[in-house]
Every structure is written in C-alpha cells, then in structure tokens.
C-alpha cells in the first residue's frame, strides 16, 4: 500500500509501529508487558539505545504513563504502548497530560474485554479513546491505522499533531494489526514536523522558572482553562478530520468502518461489487475528531450506510449523530474477540442479516442462560431493613 521509495518488506504491525516511532524522533519509551503488544517493548529495548534513546520497562502501566509525562516535560518525543487493560490503568495520566497540555503518543493495541478479557482482537475501546477516557472534559486525538504501512507512518503524524496541539495523541490499532505481517516500506513518509516548545523544563537558566500543572484552585481559573481547551478542541475538530473513501462515487450503500474492520469490509465490498451491488467504503482515519464533515457530504447522495465494528456498536453512535434520523444507518458488529467475516458483512449489505445457523444461535442462547441466568423474573427481590442513623437498626 506504500508508493514511496524504499524496499517493501513483510513486517509485523507492532514492529513497524515501533520502528516508525523511532524514525519519527521518539527517544523515550516507557512500558509494561502485555499481550498482544509485547513486540513493541521487545523491539525498542534493542532499537532505542542504538539512536541514543531511552528504553525503560516500568513497574506498571501507571508508572509508564507518568514516566512519559516526566519525559515530555523536558521536550523530548516520548511514548508508551499497551493493550486495553493497561490503557485503562493509564487514564489518570492521560487526563493529566491533557490538562497539562503535553504532547505524547500512546498506542493501544486493543484486546477484548471487559475485565481481563482475552488476548483476541476487538475494537471495544472506541468510546474510551474518543471521549477522553479519563476524568474531566478533554479529548485526545485518535488515529486508527488499518495497515502495517499506517502502523509505521502514523507515529510521524501522531508526534506532529501532539506537538502542534500540545495534546496526547492515541493510536488505536487492534491485536490483529499489531500481530499481522503486511507489506510495508519503512522509510519516512516525509520530513519530521515539529513546533516550538516554550513549556520545556530544562532548568530555569536565563529565564523565569516554569511550571507544568493541571491544578488550578484559584478563582475561576479551572473553568477558564476548560474554555481555553474547548477552543483548542474546536480547532482540532475543524482542521484534523481525516478519512479515506473507496469506490463511493457510484455507491448506493456505504460501509463505515475503521482499522481491521475496514479491511474486512473492503473484502466484503469487493465481493459485493462482483455481485453487482454498488458498495463503497468510508474509513475514518481520525476517530476523534470524527470525520463528520465528509460523512455528512457523502450522505447528500448516499441514503444507506452500514457501520461495521468489532464490538457491540460504539462508532455507530457517532455515525447516527452525524447523519441524523433521515439516513438509514444499519449496524453489524461482533464483540469479545469475534471478527465479522466478509461473508457476514455481505449478507448485511444484501439486507439479509446473518444466518449463522441454529448451532450458533443455540450457543448464544446457552451463553445467556449461563452468564445471566438470574435475569429478570428469575431472582425475586428480598427486603432487608436498613441500618438507621447512628448505627441503630430501624426496627
């Protein structure tokens, strides 16, 4: 998928991403092992010292993100990577990065949950990634690669945008994109773009001392900071919506999907076209800001959309919010490690839905009976007297 000069090689998404980060100028990595992203720290533990960079395996994801916070305070390009449970642990730190307006790259090679979940792939963290994820009113820029080439390329864009907006940037691949090998050209997609940093902590020599913080206790300072951040987010929404369209020119139905789901949708689209169905693909590249402008423009001529995700339906909310009730928006997704097959997506394009046969339906029914056997009507509510004030039982 890369057209630039350089040799096409077969490489793993995790490794390509790590190499891309190094070439994009990342000089500090802090992380904690978790499947399916372990190739990232393993690769960087060898690679970063070669370029005079820092690799440190932290004691936890909490420590990792805060080491990143410290490192980026000094102006260097720094990153961490993890997978879903580890990213949950980092949320406080990401909120601090956002509140302190610091640039950093965080890569979430998603695995299925909730809880410890499993190591299979998913897109279950869309909400977390696109709504800030931690406490407070904030957003992170979210890039969704769909190929190993984009795994390599996006760190360049991520660091550029992080520094442009002084904001944490997330890359949101999934286990499949981390683990798969794909053709990739691992030469820089262009020059490294950077911006002046007047917040850097490097010792107050010949200038007043600086402070990086996110706590503002006095007067209306915290509210005013939030308004200022809102303005920044509005600029990001205006300038940074990215997407890609494939064969939408004559499309009657358009699939909206990102990342690995978009790859599966592309195959479904190709099959549908062979069957004479005019299907296109709209692929959000930034998940936040969501490419609302382009999708709205497309809806002027396309009246039916199918959102495909590897979850129970998260991005579909954004699609419906953008398109409004006039446009038909269907959804097909599989959660918890399941991947929609092109065949299943094709069935939805035909409006048939998926008939996976009685065997699968029976399995789902059995799972419901097993995991939520106690659902409505099975367990009866039981009355217990509350403890009264001062711990005296209310007889």
């Amino acid at each position, binding site marked *: 998928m890369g057209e630039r000069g350089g040799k096409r090689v077969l490489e793993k998404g995790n490794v390509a991403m790590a190499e891309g980060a190094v070439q994009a100028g990342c000089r*500090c990595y802090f992380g904690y092992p978790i499947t399916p992203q372990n190739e990232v720290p393993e690769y960087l533990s060898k690679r970063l010292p070669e370029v005079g960079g820092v690799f440190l395996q932290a004691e936890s994801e909490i420590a990792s993100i805060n080491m990143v*916070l410290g*490192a980026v305070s000094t102006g260097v390009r720094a990153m961490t990577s993890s997978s879903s449970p580890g990213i949950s642990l980092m949320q406080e730190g990401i909120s601090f990065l956002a509140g302190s307006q610091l640039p950093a790259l965080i890569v979430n090679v998603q695995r299925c949950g909730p809880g410890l979940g499993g190591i299979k792939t998913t897109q279950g963290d869309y909400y977390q990634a696109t709504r800030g994820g931690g406490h407070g009113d904030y957003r992170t820029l979210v890039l969704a690669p769909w190929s190993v080439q984009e795994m390599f390329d996006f760190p360049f864009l991520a660091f550029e945008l992080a520094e442009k907006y002084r904001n944490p940037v997330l890359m949101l691949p999934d286990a499949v994109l981390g683990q798969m090998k794909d053709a990739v050209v691992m030469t820089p997609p262009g020059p490294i773009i950077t911006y002046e940093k007047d917040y850097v902590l490097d*010792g107050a020599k010949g200038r007043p001392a600086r402070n990086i*913080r996110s706590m503002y206790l006095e007067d209306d300072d915290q509210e005013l900071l939030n308004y200022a951040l809102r303005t920044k987010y509005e600029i990001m929404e205006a300038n940074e919506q990215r997407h890609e369209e494939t064969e939408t020119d004559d499309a009657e139905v358009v699939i909206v999907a990102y990342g690995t789901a978009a790859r599966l949708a592309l195959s479904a689209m190709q099959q549908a076209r062979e069957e004479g169905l005019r299907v296109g693909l709209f692929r959000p590249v930034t998940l936040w800001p969501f490419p609302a402008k382009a999708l709205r423009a497309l809806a002027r001529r396309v009246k039916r959309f199918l959102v495909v995700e590897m979850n129970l339906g998260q991005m579909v909310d954004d699609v419906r919010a953008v398109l409004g009730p006039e446009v038909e928006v269907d959804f097909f997704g599989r959660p918890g490690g399941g991947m929609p097959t092109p065949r299943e997506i094709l069935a939805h394009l035909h409006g048939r839905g998926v008939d996976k046969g009685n065997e699968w339906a029976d399995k789902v029914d059995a799972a419901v009976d097993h995991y939520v056997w106690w659902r409505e009507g099975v367990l009866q509510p039981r009355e217990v007297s509350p403890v009264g004030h001062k711990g005296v039982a209310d007889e």
Partner: protein
Amino acid sequence: MSKVIFERPRYLCDKVTHYCAGCTHGTAHRLVAEAIEHFGVGEKAVAVAPAGCSVMLYKYFDVDSVEAPHGRALAVGTGIKRARPDLFVFTYQGDGDLASIGLCETMHAANRGEGITVIYVNNAVYGMTGGQMAPTTLLGQRTTTTPAGRKHDNEGHPLKMAEMMATLEGVLYSERVALYDPKQIRRARKAIFHAFEVQTKHNGFGFVEVLSACPTNLHLSPVQSQKWVENEMCAAFPLGLYKDVTAKPPELPAATPEAEVNGVSQGTCHAV
C-alpha cells in the same frame, strides 16, 4: 555597620505560603532552597510536586517544576531524569503520596537507583484533604477516618519508609530527621544537603524522611505539635541514619542562626 546574617535563600520565592500556622513545610522548603543554592543547581533543577499540601510548591521554589498525579512523583521524576540526565531532579512528597498511593513507584524508582533526591515529609496525617489517616498515622492516633484511634488489627502499622528504603540496593542514602527544634533543623539541613550531594556527586538515589508537624489536623497548638513530633512520632519513627554508601557528608557553610529558621509558615490550610 550591620552585617546580614540571615536572608531568604535565592531559590525561595518572596511569598507568603498557604501553609497553616505552625506547619513545618515552610522550614523544609527553606532547607531545600538552601541546598539548591549551595550546590548551584538552581538553573538545572526540576522539582516534582505531589498531590498534597505541597502541590503548589511551584509558588515557593524559583525553579522549574511539574505537578505529578497523586503518588506518581517518582515515575514522573524518572521520566525527566532518563530524558535529561544532566538535570537535577528532586521530588517533594508527603506521606500519603509517597508511602500510600505511590508506594509502588517509590519502591521501584528507589530500587532502580534513579539519580533523584527525595524529600519525604511525614506528618502522620493527610493534611490537604482534612485530617484523614495516613500510612504513617501512629497507633492510637485519632484522625477523621480513625475516630477511635488507629488500630493495628484493622489499619495495620505505621509504615517506616526510611528503614524500608535502606533495604533497597538502589538507594545510596536514607536518613530520618525532624524539625521540632533548632538542633534537629540543623541535622535536617545536613541530611538534605547530603541527599543533594548524592545526586550531584554520585547520580544516586538519596532519601530524607522529614518528620513534620501538622498542628491543624492534630488539633494542637504549634508548640504542642512540635512536642508531639518529638515525643510521639520520634518514638514510632526513630531518627537517624539508616544507610549511606557514599563518601563522608559534604562540608557545610556556616549554619543558619537557630532562632530564625522556624516559623516561615503563615496563612490558612486549604482542605481540598
């Protein structure tokens, strides 16, 4: 002809602090500021502030500073020091920050022997949030969350950080000091200076636990609270040197006159 024998250290800002009357944060701040000046690190220092009463230390130290999430000061400090080994990094943390929520980061940064100086202010209570139990609250001590006094069978025992630090291979220096009288303040000054030198000379991890008084949350007068530190806290947290694997302590400049070191703090406590 009069001679100046006591003045504000170069890196202590000319500001009235927000600390409560009788709080010894002010004294500790002054000693740290003296060390910054003495070792000439004011133009390459980065202070890492905790969540706690000293969260706003950027107002009082005229050096670069960053505010860490609660407990994560030593992870943030690690990031700074690893990215820029030429900088002088110190954390200034309370007992809740360093010994409770941040214990994991504390132990691991210490164990890695990061070139960071840690000023650990232990006052046996959560000050900023209004007097709740700390990991270092004494057995029997009443706080707003141990209304009948801390009991070991429910809340465990006070954590002895200076002792714990001394067990870690990565720690070059660990000492516990107090601020309840001028003699102790002089010892504390010496310890803080040495912890600075552990970094400037050995790029090592130096740890100073400073027993501190919180009259507001102890519900004692400033004088009584100093007595409480001397009699009660020092019994539970014995003062002294727990580890020093560096050369002999640094030569110090003339000591600050006793009478004027104390009582820097004024103002009211912020409960957040």
